[in-house]
């Protein structure tokens, strides 16, 4: 049964099926939250709130669309609020990355070697990046979502996702090389 099928049944009143969605997404959302917030306290509470909000708003979900970007969008909002509570991120109204159009150059499928390398860098250095870079790297490399799906989750143009991932990778590489000076040689 697909996520969308389960969501459709819950919409029609089969409430127990919501448990399937919780089982499928709990670990993913906890991992996303740990990478995004970088501090693990409160994350379980936030993820529980995400599922509760997901259930309350399930009738607004269009079952002809994919379920994962929809629930990640709810989680994104909850984690952004979590960040604000932690006062680690200033509230920025104008997102300069989203101001102009950027051409989209999505890697068809990132090379396995590159992917392994980026994941290794993410494990070691993700905490050093700002939340907006941490989030796109986590969604792209760990959750393996497409640019379009990430664009729907964080609600910025697809080109902005591309430019943000590119900048995040550069910042990650710099941070990794500072921690491991022998790596670049």
């Amino acid at each position, binding site marked *: 049964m697909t996520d969308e099928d389960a969501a459709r049944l819950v919409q029609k009143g089969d409430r127990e099926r919501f448990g399937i969605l919780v089982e499928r997404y709990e*670990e993913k959302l906890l991992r996303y939250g740990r990478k995004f917030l970088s501090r693990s306290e409160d994350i*379980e509470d936030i993820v529980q709130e995400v*599922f509760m909000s997901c*259930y*309350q*708003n399930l*009738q607004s979900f269009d079952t002809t669309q994919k379920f994962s970007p929809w629930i990640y969008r709810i989680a994104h909002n909850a984690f952004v609020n979590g960040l604000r509570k932690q006062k680690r991120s200033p509230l920025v109204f104008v997102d300069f990355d989203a*101001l102009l159009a950027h051409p989209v150059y999505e890697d068809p499928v990132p090379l396995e070697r590159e992917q392994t390398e980026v994941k290794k860098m993410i494990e070691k250095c993700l905490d050093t990046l700002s939340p907006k870079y941490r989030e796109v790297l986590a969604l792209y490399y760990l959750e393996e979502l497409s640019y379009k799906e990430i*664009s729907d989750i964080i609600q910025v143009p697809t080109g902005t996702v591309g430019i943000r991932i590119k900048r995040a990778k550069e910042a990650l590489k710099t941070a990794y090389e500072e921690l491991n000076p022998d790596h670049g040689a």
Partner: protein
Amino acid sequence: MEHNQEHGTNMKDAILRKINAKELSMHPRYYFALRVAALVAVSIGVLLVSVFICNFLLFSIRVNSADSYLYFGPRGWGAFLSFFPWDLFTIDVLLVGTLLWLLRQFKFGYKSPMLYIVLGLILITVAAGAFLDRATDINDRALRAADDDRLPGLLDMFYGTARRMPPPGHGVCKCVIVSIQNGMLTLVDLRDASTTFTAVMPQDDPRATTSGLEPGDVIFVAGDRGSTTVHAFGIRKLPEEETW
């Protein structure tokens, strides 16, 4: 792993318990339909108010012939900036900002670069405002209604104060020429027909000259005003449609 499984079951059970105990319920479909409808209605409302303010801003410049200042060189440009209705402009900027925020709640709003949406909103607001002011007579009719005390409160607040005094030190605005003698104009202020005064021209200044003027013309005068004279730094004969 075992911990994760246990933890997963806990969260699932906790949520299902709340659902079954009816502590957690789904919002009905119409709730979302109403929310979208409200969002659309508020967006349209904000857009209409924004267009009205922009229209009134342009009308405020037209009714006071403040664009005449732009013909009078650097001093005139300074006067134009002093006269410009910055309060209305600020309100309109805030409304466009609100509209931008509202539109970003829709998919097309966040899928498009913000700059394009801002430019689009400015273009729509200014074009619609200019159309209302220049291609229709609603402002002129509203002004006449305000003159006759026939406008309701909020509109009267706008149109009842549409005719404004010039900025301090920058002249007398609209006048009718009573007579022309020795390069001096005798004028009556259109806002106060009981006030007659004389305009003294500077020597050899093409921006303030009596050439081409005759008694009965309605002119826009900018200058330093004394009790009975004004030392003009700019004079412009107003086109027929701006003489009211």
